[in-house]
Every structure is written in C-alpha cells, then in structure tokens.
C-alpha cells in the first residue's frame, strides 16, 4: 500500500470504530438459511422486546459453504459478532486459532448438562467456547397412507424392515426408499451414523474406537456397511444422481414410502399439505436388542473475539441460554431440540415422537464427530466418500471398513491415553 493510503485507512477505521461502538448492533453468522424467516419474524423480535437497544441481524450463508466462508472471514477480521458454532472439531479449531471467546464463568452455562457442553469444549473440558443450542435426532419417516394401503406397520427389526421394503417394491406403485448419493453427506450423516449405533452399541462403540480398543474392521462396524449394501434395490432409478433436495421432493410428493431423515426434516415435510407421515427409530438387528439413537448436538453459538460489541453479544448469548429461547426454538424450529436442562413441551407430534425415543433408547452422538475427523485424511470426508460408494455398489463393506481404518490409523495413536 502506498504512503498515502495507510494514514487515510487508519483515520477512516478510527472514525468508524467510534461509530460502531455506539451502535448496539450485532451480526449473527449462521448456516441455517432455512430459518431466516423464523429469526426475522419470531426469534429476533422476541429478543428485542426483552432487550430494546440491541439490534441483531441474522445473516446466514449456505450450509456447504458456511465453514469455509466463516473461517476466511474470521481470518481476515470481517466476520460477524456472533458465530453459530458447528459441534466438536470444527469449532474447536476456531477456538484454538483464537477466534472464539472463552465463556467459562458465564452463569448461563449452568443451564446445560455436561453431555451437551462437551460438543463445545476443549478435550480436557476446561474451556467452553459456545453456548449449546439444539440437538437433532435421526431416524426414518414413513408415509402413513402407503403403509396403510399395504397393511404395513413401522418395522422394529432389520428383518421387519426388509420385509416392508420388499412388500412395497412388489406392489410396483411406489419407490420403497427415497435416498440418493449425489450429495454424499446424507449417506454418512443421516444413514451411516443414524442406523450404525444399533450395531456398534452407541457410545460404547464410539468410545472404544477412540480408546483404540476397537477397529473399524471389527464385525460390529462392517455389519453397518453390509446392511447399507443391501439397500440399492429399494432405491429409485438413477439414485446416483439424486440430491438431498430430490430425496425430500420424492418423499414429499408421496411417491416414496420411507425416507431416512433427521428431525430437522420435520419442518420441511410439515409444509406438504397432503403428506401424512410418521417416524420410526432405526431398526435393531434382532428382536429384543437394546436400541440406540443418534442424538446429535448440532448447533451452538459463540462470540467472535474480534467483535467490537462484546457486551451486547454476551447479553444475546445469555438470552440464547434462557428458557424463553429454549421453548421458542424447540417449538418453532421444528425438529431442533433444545439442549438445555429446562423441560420443554414439544408440540409437534412427530417431533414429540422422536424426542420420546430418548426414553426407550440410549443416545449417542454422530460417530466421528469428536476427535476422529481431526487428522489427515479427515474421517468426515472419508466417510462421505465410502458411504456413497457402498450405496453405489462401487465398494464392498470390507473395503469400506479397511479404508476408514487405515486412514484413521495413519494419524491417530491412542497410546497416549
């Protein structure tokens, strides 16, 4: 920059910093583009009523770009004051790089159980950098009309599951399952981590992997891929080019009977006037087996260390941790369940059904969310890849297991524990 530019720049910056300090405006970064209307018309007005004088602007970025865009903005100092936090390693990385404020000592954090906070804490549990907001639960949705027509009941075991799928396929009128591999993430984050816990016994399996006591090539993990490898005959023609949006559209149009889904999908399917749907938990292997569900802490909120308005940001975070917000968010952002300790009455029937599974089944987070995706190669991306390939019939379950295990072993040495 030439000599004239710098003094001018500083002068301008100085003037603008003074201006900003008085503003009481906060910018909120998020990936929930779907929720923009919700924030603008329900949540933010509620906040402004409780705290007049602070204006918050909700500025979402499309989900696939969010991580990279926010990271770039934080690196160069142009990110918003409030950052919506992805769980575990993604936000941990931001914290380590000094972009998120340490929140320990904030009394509002007492509203959350440890199991929720762990998604936004350093490995030793000493630093917390985001306030937990909500979790999502994985399962399957089914079209009640089709099931009624074919005389089917929501399946409880794998055998029932296949029997139902076979019957739907035999009828020739509907696609048994709506699922595509084009977007890849759903094959991993909805399918694999959704049905898997029943095979690897939830937290036990996950923790064993982290402790080095189990390997992906062990039978309980390979079995998941074997189960997935049986699905292609039930999928729509050309599913390899079916995107997540297509999957939703297919089920919403009533042309498919079952769809693997997360609770966040409830809001979308609710809007479909003619669709009568219910949910069932991922089937267990044998009748009588204990069931496990993927109950994933998905969304939190933190403060940008470079924010010029931290005082107001802290006020906003306290409100996020309040019962009022927990109630509003759970019932208006259907399918997102507040992580707080407050007992919330879930109004939506399907959401209520899903959150009820917590009582019958043991919860676990998505398998590779903590620690396992930190290295090179990133297990998250590897899982997306192998899960899509298994469903495409391009990789055998054994190959998938070996690939994940060898990638993991390349950088992960549990000996330290």
């Amino acid at each position, binding site marked *: 920059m030439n000599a004239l*530019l710098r003094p001018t*720049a500083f002068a301008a*910056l100085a003037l603008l910093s003074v201006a900003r300090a008085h503003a009481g405006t906060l910018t909120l970064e998020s990936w929930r583009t*779907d929720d923009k209307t919700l924030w603008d018309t329900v949540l933010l007005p509620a906040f402004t009523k409780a705290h007049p004088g602070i204006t918050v602007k909700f*500025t979402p970025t499309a989900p696939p770009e969010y991580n990279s865009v926010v990271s770039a903005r934080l690196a160069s100092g*142009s990110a918003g004051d409030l950052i919506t936090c992805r769980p575990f390693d993604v936000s941990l990385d931001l914290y380590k790089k000094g972009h998120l404020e340490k929140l320990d000592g904030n009394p509002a954090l007492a509203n959350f159980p440890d199991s929720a906070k762990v998604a936004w804490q350093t490995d030793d549990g000493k630093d917390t950098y985001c306030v937990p907001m909500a979790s999502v639960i994985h399962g399957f949705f089914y079209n009640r009309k089709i099931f009624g027509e074919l005389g089917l009941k929501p399946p409880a075991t794998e055998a029932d599951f296949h029997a139902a799928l076979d019957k739907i396929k035999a009828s020739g009128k509907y696609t048994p399952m709506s699922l595509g591999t084009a977007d890849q993430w759903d094959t991993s984050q909805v399918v694999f981590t959704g049905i898997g816990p029943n095979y690897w016994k939830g937290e036990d399996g996950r923790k064993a992997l982290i402790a080095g006591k189990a390997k992906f090539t062990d039978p309980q993990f390979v079995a998941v891929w074997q189960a997935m490898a049986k699905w292609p005959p039930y999928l729509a023609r050309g599913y390899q080019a079916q995107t997540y949006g297509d999957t939703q559209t297919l089920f919403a149009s009533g042309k498919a009977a079952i769809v693997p889904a997360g609770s966040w999908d409830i809001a979308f399917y609710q809007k479909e006037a003619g669709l009568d749907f219910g949910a069932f938990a991922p089937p267990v292997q044998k009748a009588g087996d204990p069931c496990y569900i993927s109950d994933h802490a998905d969304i939190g909120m933190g403060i940008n260390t470079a924010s010029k308005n931290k005082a107001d940001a802290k006020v906003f975070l306290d409100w996020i941790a309040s019962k009022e917000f927990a109630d509003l968010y759970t019932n208006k952002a259907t399918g997102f369940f507040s992580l707080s300790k407050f007992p919330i009455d879930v109004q939506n029937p399907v959401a209520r059904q899903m959150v009820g599974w917590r009582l019958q089944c043991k919860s676990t987070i998505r398998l590779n969310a903590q620690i396992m995706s930190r290295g090179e190669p990133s297990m998250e991306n590897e899982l997306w890849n192998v899960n899509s390939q298994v469903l495409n019939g391009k990789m055998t379950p054994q190959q998938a297991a070996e690939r994940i295990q060898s990638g993991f072993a390349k950088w992960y040495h549990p000996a330290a524990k």
Partner: protein
Amino acid sequence: MSRHPIRASALGRSALVHLTLGGYCLLVLCPILLVLLNSFKSRAGIFDDPLGLPTTATLSLAGYGKVLGDAAVGHMFVNSAIVTGVSLAAILLLGAMAAWALTEYGFFGNRLLALFLAFGIMVPIRLGSVAILQEMVALDLVNTLTALVLVYIAQGLPLAVMILSEFVGQVPQELKDAARCDGVGEYRIFFQVVLPLIRPAVATVAVFTMVPIWNDLWFPLILAPSEQTQTITLGVQQFVGQFATDWNAVLAALSLAVLPILVLYAVFSRQLIRGITAGAVK
C-alpha cells in the same frame, strides 16, 4: 461432423448452413425455454409434466410471487449493474491506455511489464483471496461495492491489455507519424486517433469481460455479502440454496435472472456488430 466437399447449389448450401446453425440454436435455447416455461407452472405441474406447456390447471405465478416478494431483487440488480458497469469502463479505459503505453513506447522494462501483466491471466485471482480480504479490511472497504470494483479491475486488466495490445499494434504507422508531424500531443493521439481505430477490439473485450464480472459468485460472497451490497448472482445462489426444493420459486428466480442479461446483451450486441463492421469497412 463430416466435412465432405459441398458441391450442391447455392440453395442447398444455404439449407445446410441454416440447418447447422439453427440446430445448434435449438440446443442452446431448449434448456432455457424449459426453465422459463416451467417457472409458470405449479409444483405438481413441474414434476408430473415437465415437457408440457402450462395448462389452465397448472398455470401458477406462485414462484414469481415468492421471488419478487422476497428480497430487494431490484436493489441487487442495481448493485450488479454498478459493479459491472464501473469495472468495465475502468478496465477498457485503463487497459487501452496501458496497451498503448506498452506497444508504442520503448522504455526499459517494457517487455518485463507486459509479462508482469500477463502473469495475471494465468493465475486465478482467487488464490489471493485471504490477502485481498485483509487488504479490504485494512482499507475498510469490506461490504462496499468499491472493493468489488477494484478487484474486478485488477482481474480484468491482464486479458484486456493483452488483446488490446495486439490491436493497438496494428494501427498504421503512417497515421501516427502524420499526427506527430502535425504537432499533435501524445494524449490527443491516443484519444482521438488510436482509440477510435481499436473500437471493434474494445467492443469484443467489453462483451466477454462483462460476463465474468456479472456472473461472479466468489468475491461478492467473500468481500461484500451484506444485504445492501449483494449482487444478483449471489442473491440467486442464496435463494436457490434456500429454496432448493421449492422448484417453482427456483425456476422463477432463474428466469428472472436470465431476462436482464438478455436485454443487456441485446443492447451491447448492436454496439458490437457496429464496432466490428466499422472496423472491417475501414
């Protein structure tokens, strides 16, 4: 495509020409028409009968309602227009000036500077994004249209200079000598003698410099994503991402995004033709 000798009569040859051109035109127009037609249908109509025209049952303007009712669509268009227009004008003017300086004048480092500028054609400017963003923060130009304009000028100059240099070099020596003999100053020579002569090149450079700027997604996303500075391309992308399953809204958005480009091009294309033919006639 076979290339056997054409011995047919003029009529036969003309038919083949029109068949080829017309055929390709169909390949170009069909996808666009498909989007336009389906944007006027209801969701059911789009899904069940994609190739059909909108019938009375399926005709629906719901998609357009959602798009037009949604964001400040008009404002986004204005943003795109300002950024594209100003960048383009600057690229053409500064580019022509630089091309003239590099080809006409001999000075130390002349070739080196030309190479330095050519460097920019080969390396995607996106590589420098983090550094560019830091610069904009330091200059406090984040979320301004100015940031976009500056970056696009820097992006467009190398190719403009390279192409214009070729044409500037073709300006007849006699014209320049004559002007200089008459005592005409260098600036006047450039603006009044050289610039008019390279108009066809300027027009061509304009058309395909304008396009990447108008359609750029990356820099608006990184440098100016705020509501006041959103360009139409960014706006459509956000909209599509948000309403991925709302097909008639998405198709309406896409249709609306296409229309002004058509208009802009129709206007520019006349200039282009005029410029090219004027050059050829000379």
